[in-house]
């Protein structure tokens, strides 16, 4: 057939671009023991009058991010910042905790002293940082969470709302694709973050294991853990050495997944890899066929949703407790559309080059 | 016992005073395979100076460190007033009234003079608090009592070497010790301070203190000592009565082998002069430094040994360092073997044919943790290459080089790979000489080359120096031991506070030279005041 990006896209790719249905519930919080119901980000509508009111308020916002070493936080921040700018709210500070919970607590204290109206944050450890977030709330600052909610905080009371990607569904999708590609049988491994308290990654393990459990022929050989993504190379090398029959690995996000691919290549092993998330660098891996499938988040959209919940709250309007951004399925065939959907930019030349007219 | 050995018969052993204050009996000590002391007896009585002599590495410091509690002896007892205080800890021995001035200065450069003098027995208030006020007062009282030019509040870091040695003396003396061990206390004191020290020793003796005095300077020993003992081959010879023996005899007793092992004839080093007909090794015109040297001019002919006489702080070391390129702000016209020298660059100085034996061999002369052969090769690595396609440092050439000087200079060592730190002072100094002779210099600068070196090794140094000069090298000799200058130098320049005041062709005797220096200094001070 004679398909051509971006004008003529094969139906297969168009089909993949349809979001998967949301998992029904989110992280359990006070008031919602089974987790609050999920709604999509389309709930927000802004009239001109609302926008004028926001502008007149001269509101300020700050962002306390967990780590900056990937494309994901950058896109989130852009989503938040651009949307807020449109709405007339100023982002005055952004902190990077380098994945250290202690550092993030210090960041929050400093941001609190800066007295913004809203703080956006993704808690690294929902348990040990809860007190620090409660203090932010006590200082009269509105909190909007990304992905994780600190333990014991109630929506509508202690914080506005949380917007999360459907992480469990993302992982479930990626793991299922892995099993399918393996013909439903063989040994698999998981590479994920060592800290189980980091909710949004921990549920990916749950999602992946759920998918693996659905295939009687699939055997989970080992769950390897890393303290930081660059360690995945060594962990994967060891895992592949200890288990010579592993044919597929699910990695919890793209940076470690790249290291898993490198490890398999170095060992000369044929191993299928699926993961979550894409960015300009990991898109190359999809284009090359190194990642069989990706269940991706849409961090920019997530940021937009977070900004809008904050704006609603600043206007004194009600916000749903849990907003969920549905899974974006990514395979080589729809890579370009998906990458554009994630980054909101035209795919870079490097990706187009590697795709060699095979992605759309 | 050593006293029974035939060689001591002619030197009548003297008995100690009625009651020995401290006595060490049957002391043995080994470091690994090195048996330093074997069943040694030693004692000190109240009110005497007991001198301890011996070659470098004989074990004098080791014996005294045992007395001080730094080392625990392998066998033997130490008793003070009949009470066994056998080797527990320094603190214990200090509290028993034994104090020591260590050979390696043991001051804390980061603290004040007062802190150092009273270290370990600071006046306290309630709690563990230090009473700073009375501390300073007490320290200054001590300083003033002995009349040293020091202030309690000065940082030791800012003091010169000689002043540090004064602090060291005060620290030991002020402990009110009953036994005081002085391990080469005068090695860097100038004449005036030396006099002061001797006066102090006399006073302490009069107060009934027992003093052990270690030195390589015979004149001093014969002046101070009531008794003397010699450490040799792990044994103690003596005690001897100074009145009944002589420097010469003592030197013979100390030496393990024949007095001097170096044959001057074998030291030929000089590269032949760059251009024929140039007879000067060094010509200096208008040499100045920012802080010290004031317009120096002089020459050294090939084969000539020129001595520099001066008091501590007169700028002798500064002169040596300036010529060798170690003083960045030195200015002046200097030519070596007829070629102009660019000041401020040691590598240029070496290339021009200057060799420099510095005054502190442990700090400036040697890499103590490295092997003897790599120390000897350090300044002439460029000449020790061989090629296997690319230039490679030849370990064989280095070994040969070491072997060569090992024989010529009579270095006592077991292997080329032995560490420099394991050698005695005299042998260490020979290694430094070897390093510089290996560069085939035209000019040899020696700064206090015999400091802390035993009499026999001293003789070796002189022989080396003379041998080098005979083969056409110019030698600049700096020494605080004026008799060494008068004995070795062909010509002596007196350096007083950064200026050359006289040029003496005839070897004057020590006392005269000393008087001259002091007179010149006084004159200079007057002139500066005016």
């Amino acid at each position, binding site marked *: 057939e004679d398909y051509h990006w971006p004008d003529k896209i094969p139906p297969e790719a168009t089909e993949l671009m349809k979001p998967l249905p949301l998992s029904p519930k989110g992280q359990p919080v006070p008031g919602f023991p089974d987790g609050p119901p999920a709604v999509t980000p389309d709930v927000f509508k802004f009239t001109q009058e609302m926008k004028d009111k926001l502008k007149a308020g001269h509101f300020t916002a700050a962002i306390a991010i967990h780590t900056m070493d990937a494309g994901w936080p950058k896109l989130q921040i852009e989503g938040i910042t651009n949307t807020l700018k449109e709405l007339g709210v100023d982002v005055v500070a952004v902190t990077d905790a380098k994945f250290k919970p202690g550092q993030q607590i210090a960041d929050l204290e400093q941001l609190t*002293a800066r007295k913004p109206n809203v703080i956006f944050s993704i808690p690294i450890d929902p*348990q040990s940082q809860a007190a620090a977030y409660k203090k932010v709330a006590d200082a009269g600052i509105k909190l909007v969470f990304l992905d994780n909610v600190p333990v014991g905080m109630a929506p509508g009371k202690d914080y506005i709302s949380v917007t999360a990607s459907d992480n469990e569904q993302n992982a479930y999708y990626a793991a299922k694709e892995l099993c399918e590609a393996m013909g439903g049988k063989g040994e698999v491994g998981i590479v994920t973050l060592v800290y189980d308290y980091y909710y949004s990654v921990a549920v990916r393990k749950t999602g992946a294991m759920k998918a693996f459990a659905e295939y009687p022929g699939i055997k989970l050989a080992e769950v390897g853990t890393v303290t930081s993504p660059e360690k995945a190379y060594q962990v994967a090398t060891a895992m592949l050495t200890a288990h010579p029959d592993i044919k597929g690995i699910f990695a919890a996000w793209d940076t470690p997944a790249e290291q898993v691919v490198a490890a398999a290549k170095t060992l000369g092993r044929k191993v299928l890899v699926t993961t979550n998330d894409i960015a300009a660098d990991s898109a190359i891996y999809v284009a090359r066929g190194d990642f069989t499938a990706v269940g991706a988040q849409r961090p920019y959209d997530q940021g937009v949703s977070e900004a809008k919940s904050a704006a609603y709250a600043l206007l004194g309007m009600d916000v749903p407790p849990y907003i969920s951004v549905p899974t974006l399925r990514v395979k080589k065939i729809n890579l370009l559309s998906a990458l554009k959907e994630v980054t909101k930019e035209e795919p870079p030349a490097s990706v187009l080059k590697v795709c060699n007219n095979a992605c759309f | 016992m050593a006293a029974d050995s035939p060689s001591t018969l002619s030197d009548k052993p003297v008995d100690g005073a009625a009651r020995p204050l401290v006595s060490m009996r049957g002391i043995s000590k080994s470091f690994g395979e090195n048996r330093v002391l074997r069943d040694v007896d030693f004692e000190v009585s109240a009110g005497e100076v007991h001198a301890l002599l011996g070659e470098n590495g004989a074990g004098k410091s080791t014996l005294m460190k045992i007395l001080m509690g730094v080392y625990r002896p392998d066998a033997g007892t130490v008793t003070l007033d009949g009470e066994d205080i056998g080797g527990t800890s320094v603190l214990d021995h200090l509290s028993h009234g034994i104090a020591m001035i260590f050979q390696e200065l043991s001051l804390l450069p980061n603290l004040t003079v007062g802190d150092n003098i009273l*270290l370990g027995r600071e006046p306290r208030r309630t709690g563990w*608090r230090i009473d700073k006020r009375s501390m300073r007062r007490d320290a200054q009282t001590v300083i003033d009592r002995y009349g040293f030019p020091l202030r309690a509040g000065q940082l030791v870091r800012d003091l010169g070497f000689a002043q540090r040695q004064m602090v060291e003396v005060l620290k030991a003396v002020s402990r009110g010790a009953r036994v005081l061990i002085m391990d080469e206390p005068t090695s860097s004191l100038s004449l005036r301070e030396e006099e002061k020290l001797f006066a102090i020793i006399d006073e302490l003796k009069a107060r009934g203190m027992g003093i052990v005095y270690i030195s390589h300077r015979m004149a001093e020993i014969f002046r101070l000592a009531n008794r003397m003992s010699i450490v040799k081959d792990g044994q103690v010879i003596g005690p001897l009565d100074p009145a009944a023996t002589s420097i010469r005899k003592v030197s013979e007793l100390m030496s393990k082998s024949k007095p001097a092992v170096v044959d001057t004839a074998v030291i030929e080093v000089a590269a032949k002069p760059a251009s024929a007909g140039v007879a000067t090794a060094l010509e200096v015109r208008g040499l100045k430094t920012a802080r010290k040297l004031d317009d120096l001019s002089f020459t050294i002919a090939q084969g000539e040994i020129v001595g520099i006489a001066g008091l501590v702080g007169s700028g002798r070391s500064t002169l040596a360092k300036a010529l060798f390129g170690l003083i960045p702000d030195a200015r002046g016209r200097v030519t070596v073997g007829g070629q102009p020298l660019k000041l401020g660059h040691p590598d240029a100085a070496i290339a021009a044919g200057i060799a420099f034996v510095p005054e502190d061999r442990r700090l400036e002369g040697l890499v103590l943790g490295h092997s003897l052969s790599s120390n000897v090769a350090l300044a002439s690595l460029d000449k020790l290459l061989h090629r296997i396609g690319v230039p490679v440092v030849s370990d064989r050439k280095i070994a040969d080089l070491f072997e060569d000087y090992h024989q010529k200079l009579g270095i006592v060592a077991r292997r080329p790979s032995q560490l420099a730190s394991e050698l005695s002072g005299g042998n260490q100094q020979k290694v430094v000489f070897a390093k510089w002779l290996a560069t085939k210099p035209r000019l040899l600068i020696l700064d206090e080359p015999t400091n802390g070196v035993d009499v026999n090794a001293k003789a070796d140094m002189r022989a080396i120096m003379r041998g080098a000069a005979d083969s056409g090298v110019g030698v600049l000799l700096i020494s605080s031991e004026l008799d060494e200058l008068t004995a070795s130098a062909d010509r002596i320049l007196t350096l007083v506070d950064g200026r050359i005041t006289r040029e003496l062709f005839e070897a004057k005797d020590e006392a005269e030279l000393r008087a001259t220096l002091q007179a010149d200094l006084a004159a200079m001070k007057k002139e500066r005041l005016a």
Partner: protein
Amino acid sequence: MTVQQSSAVERDSAWTTIRRTLVQRPTYLIFAAVTAFFIIFAPNFATLSTAGAILRVTALVSIMAVGMTFVIICGEIDLSVGSASSWSGMVIALLLQANVPTAVAPLLVIAMGALIGLVNGLLVTKLRIPSFLVTLGMLSILSGLALTITNTEPVPIVDDAFSDLLWNASYIGLPAPIWWTIVIVLIGYYLLQMTVFGRRVYAVGGNLVAARFSGIKTDRIKITAFMFSGMTAALAGLLLAARSTAGNPSLGSGLELDVIAAVIIGGTSLFGGVGDIPGSVIGAIFIGILGFGLLVLGLSTSIQEVIKGGIIILAVALNRR
């Protein structure tokens, strides 16, 4: 010489002392300049609440810097303080979970901090391993233990009395962490600057052999310094846990670098023998001000890193005359 003279020992006036301090520590001028810059240009910087926030943020670093000052003046280093504080946070959380009384549990943790320091000190002095390595190994061991003990799970602290005592309460208008900082700084100052022990710490770092020859039990001094450092790290861990009302295995990770930087830009020499407590505390506060000011100016964290690195190098370069 007469007795007269000896009593006429000069005493430095307060003014001379200040002037001398400024000449010896030109860094203080940089601190002042940077702070003034933020006060003028950073929005909302010159407020009491900002000052309070900075002090609270720097409390942890200040407290550990006091212990570290002893170790560094001894000529050693302690890289294990960050992970020792994480580990202490885990331990206190587990102890409180096991219903150990609020009055007892913190003391046990502090004792454990001393024990960690003791092990560091023994390895450094008796086995003569460089402290850089001993404490690097200890860092690994403690951070591994903190992760292992609950299998990376954080442990909540529900004992409010504990959190109040160490972090949340205020006394006479000052929040608890600032009080704790003051207490530790005073103890540290007393020990280092006023006691015989402190003098010996300087002696050990100034010239180890000389100190030994002067009858000082150098090993014991070093071990004590490590123990004190371990105790301050444990206290910092208690504060961290109280602040989070939970123990988390990586709460304190990476703090050691801030602590060492604070001590060094405060004028303590890495080679030992030189330094003091007030300098270290000023260093810690300065690092706090710098981080906070750059943040308030709205600079990105990565640029902040660059500027922070540059200023720290500059400060130390100025400290060596």
